[in-house]
């Protein structure tokens, strides 16, 4: 296992040289290949982690959106996305029961104050306490399932410049048991695309000009070929069709697994404020988006509040954030500052 990572690093060092770059722009000194201290990547896919279940986690079926209710001849549920507390959706379905998530117990990383509630997810090794409460809220909504609208739209967004995400491994040498660092960035640029529509490796992408979209640097260690970094705060910028906003991870854990072909795959776990989640899936997508993904804004908001498990606010006596988990794949890129 260790051997193949060394080969991968050799490839980066010899073929690609440095993966991040500085430079002064067009009129400056010649840009020549710097040293290979930073290995850069651009995400080529970004999607929810989809848990596995031994029994049906949605025994009552999926949540019905306004369109489905109309088609089924059911009474519409009053829904005002700008005022989700004005109504209630008693038929909004949440994901129930245990499940397996290739995630982490954020409590061991988090300094995010007193947490709320308990998770019923376990990791593949059977360890309990894996945090992923967002999926409790959206796991029984058709539009958030694997291969459905949300998955497709977000998958396209990382390729078309709507949500370009960069990642750097700092001091990565390919050795197990080594200490290194991880940092993530949003970018305002589109990754280079090939004639077949795929993201091309070795493009140069600049980090977002707003430093709020540069994550904190996460300390990391590599064990058994897997790098785990955190906690770190990560903010991703998205501008997808009618949705313009952020995905902000508080106390995030980033897991990265380098592949022999030079790509990486990984996941990011952390807490996202429920107000931010709702801003995207309630306020901005509005009624049209809720209908397309098959939920009601009022049901979603209520569920987010109920499942929030981080960021305890003594003033309200409730948590204002919810644990989230995303998986990603990334290919080599030059990260320019």
């Amino acid at each position, binding site marked *: 296992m260790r051997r193949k990572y060394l080969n991968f690093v050799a490839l980066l060092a010899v*073929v*690609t*040289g*440095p*993966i*991040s*770059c*500085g*430079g*002064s*722009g*067009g*009129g*400056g*000194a*010649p*840009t*020549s*290949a*710097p040293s290979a201290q930073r290995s850069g990547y651009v995400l080529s896919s970004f999607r929810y982690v989809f848990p596995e279940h031994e029994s049906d986690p949605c025994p009552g079926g999926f949540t019905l959106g306004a369109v489905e209710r109309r088609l089924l001849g059911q009474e519409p549920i009053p829904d005002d996305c700008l005022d989700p507390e004005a109504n209630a959706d008693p038929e909004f379905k949440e994901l129930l029961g245990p499940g397996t998530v290739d995630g982490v117990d954020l409590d061991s990383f988090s300094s995010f104050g007193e947490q709320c509630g308990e998770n019923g997810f376990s990791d593949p090794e059977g360890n309990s306490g894996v945090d992923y409460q967002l999926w409790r809220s959206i796991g029984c909504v058709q539009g958030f399932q694997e291969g459905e609208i949300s998955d497709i739209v977000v998958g396209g967004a990382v390729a078309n410049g709507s949500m370009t995400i960069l990642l750097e491994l700092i001091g990565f040498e390919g050795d197990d048991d080594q200490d290194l660092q991880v940092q993530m960035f949003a970018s305002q*640029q589109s990754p*280079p695309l*090939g*004639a*077949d529509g*795929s993201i*091309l*490796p*070795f*493009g*140069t992408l*600049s980090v977002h000009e707003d430093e709020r979209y540069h994550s904190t640097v996460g300390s990391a260690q590599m064990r058994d070929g897997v790098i785990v970094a955190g906690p770190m705060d990560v903010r991703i910028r998205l501008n997808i069709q009618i949705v313009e906003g952020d995905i902000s991870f508080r106390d995030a854990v980033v897991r990265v697994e380098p592949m022999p072909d030079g790509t990486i795959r990984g996941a990011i776990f952390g807490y996202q404020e429920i107000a931010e989640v709702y801003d995207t899936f309630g306020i901005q997508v509005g009624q049209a988006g809720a209908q397309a993904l098959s939920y009601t804004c009022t049901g979603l908001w209520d569920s987010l509040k109920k499942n929030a498990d981080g960021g305890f606010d003594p003033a309200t006596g409730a948590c204002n954030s919810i644990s989230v988990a995303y998986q990603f794949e990334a290919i080599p890129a*030059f990260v*320019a500052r």
Partner: protein
Amino acid sequence: MFNRFAVLAVGVVAIGCAGDGPGAGSGPLASPIEAGPVAMRRLTETQYRASVADILGDGLSIAGRIEPDNRRSGLLAVGSSYVSVTAAGFEQYESIARSLAEQALAPERRADFVPCEPADGGPVDADCAAMFIRKVGGRLLRRPLTDAEVESRVAIAAEAGATLGDFYAGLELVLTTLLVSPDFLFRIEDVESGSSDAQRLTSRAMATRLSYFLWNSTPDEELQRAAEAGELIDDEGVATQVDRMLESPRIEDSVRAFFGDLYSFEDIEQGLVSKDPTLFPAFTQDLIGDAGEQTLRVIVDHMLTSDGDYRDLFTTRQSFMTRKLGVVYRVPVAATEGWEPFEFPADGERAGILTHLSLLALHSHPGRSSPTLRGKFVREVLLCQDVPPPPGDIDFASFSDASTPNRRTARQRLEAHVANPACAGCHGLMDPIGLALEQLDGIGALRTEENGATIDPTGELDGVSYTDARGLGVVLSRHPALGPCFVRSFFRYATGRDTVEGEEPFLVSLEQRMSGLGYRMRDLMRTIALSDAFRLASGTRDAEVVLETPVPMDTFTPSPTAPPPDGTPRTATATRPRPPATATPQAASFAQIRDEILTPKCATQFCHSSQTMSGGLVLEGAGARDNLVGVAPTNPAAAERGWSRVQASDPDNSFLMVKIIGPNESALGSRMPLGGSALSSEEVALIEGWITAGAGR
């Protein structure tokens, strides 16, 4: 003299920079014994666009397909004197001209061109129209218009203006007629009157020749003034203008035009370079566009900005980069848009323009790299050596088959391919060059393996070995044919024609001078522009094409090489070039021809010997005559014409004559002896005499 450098001969020549000794650059230039012909050269598309922009202003849209340029002897510049205008092409020129006239005379622009306003704002004003016609027409036709020409166009403007009720509509029609005038579309050269064989170009012709040579566009007002003042007849007047023009940044246009022409970059501009998107997803038209521009930027930076030695283009690590290119070069590019300077690493795999994506992608197949095409480019374009086309019956499937374990790399497949002696000769010239570039794939991206096998980039060029692409660049930069080939190519570009035999002493002295000066661009441009060879012409030559469409404009001015003004088509007078006039052919025996000419010059190691039998033809031994007389040629184009290799008593239908004189179309292959000096006129005459006398034994 495209074949001056004998391919085989250079193999035993020590690689070095001949003529680099002290004072080598100050030697006198020889005058040509024989000057080249005057020409009637159609503006290339680039020249057309530049001329329009210079005269009518930037920003005008030229929408339409301009008559395609024609490559001849490796250059569009040479081909421009062999092309005419087809009927469909004229329609395009006319359509573009109408559009340009409409744009140029639009209300917001017309003040730039029309030096007056019509009296009373009416539709007809002969005086104002005449002012416009003299001003703009003089620039477009590169000469003052005669009174008759002005009057005829004033009449057109008046009639059109009155009919359409708009003065400027009348001028639009006149401007359209000027833009389709043969005197605009063609550069028609004249010589001073006199009886000498070598006559000096007129002052006006010199202005045009200088301008398109040094700026690749129409003469500016100062050059036109000098031309009309007759200042371009004497040395001092020419030197004054040449030095002024060389000081201008516009010489970059000429350098770009020359190298773009030499390297066939029009294929890039026209979107003709394509790759299999499955195999090369990174290849896009934007990418190859940037790649071509990268190479031209490096050339301009090295040859003009840095006043560098041409030979160093093949070793320089200095370059420029865009983010699109950075993806394939796998280097970071800080500039978010546009270009930034870049230096390839000293320990990297690339240096010199041979390792640029542009040339690598151009000389590859859509699905794979091609050591043969890359080697052919180096031999033919960079070293001015001829490589013949492959025989028509080659089975390329064996080369493409990479499934056999010992044929995974191009080197392995080519080794199997050239086991055939008929292939070995030419591939031996090309493949070792191209194999050095095999670590750069069909679009120029770096790779170390092909089909799982390690690529071996070692090779040799004419006896000098190298270990990789960078080494090839170093060896090439020291090759004795590189600099002289550049000089000859640039001279042919400057004059727009092939060189003639009588120019050989001049060319040799030019090579020597430029060798001593380090093959620097401005030196070469100035030396050529001031040379007798550039300023003299011998007269007209026979046309080779049928001009099917009568020139439609009544304002056409006859010239020495122009078609008759009555529109009568000028028919071809020769289908293949003829040797210079010689003494009456004398009959000779075949044995004499074989022993004195064919065997020593053609039956060489890689060619028509009994071992290699290139093209299935053996030109030594007792059977040599039977291989020629009455035998159909393997060349399909020759066979289609019904020629024999030798048709007894009929040299015009004997392919051998075409081959030794030099075919005038690529389908007929290369001039023989391949890579060697052409047969002398006496030798050609001897063979022609033998054929005419019945091609006996």
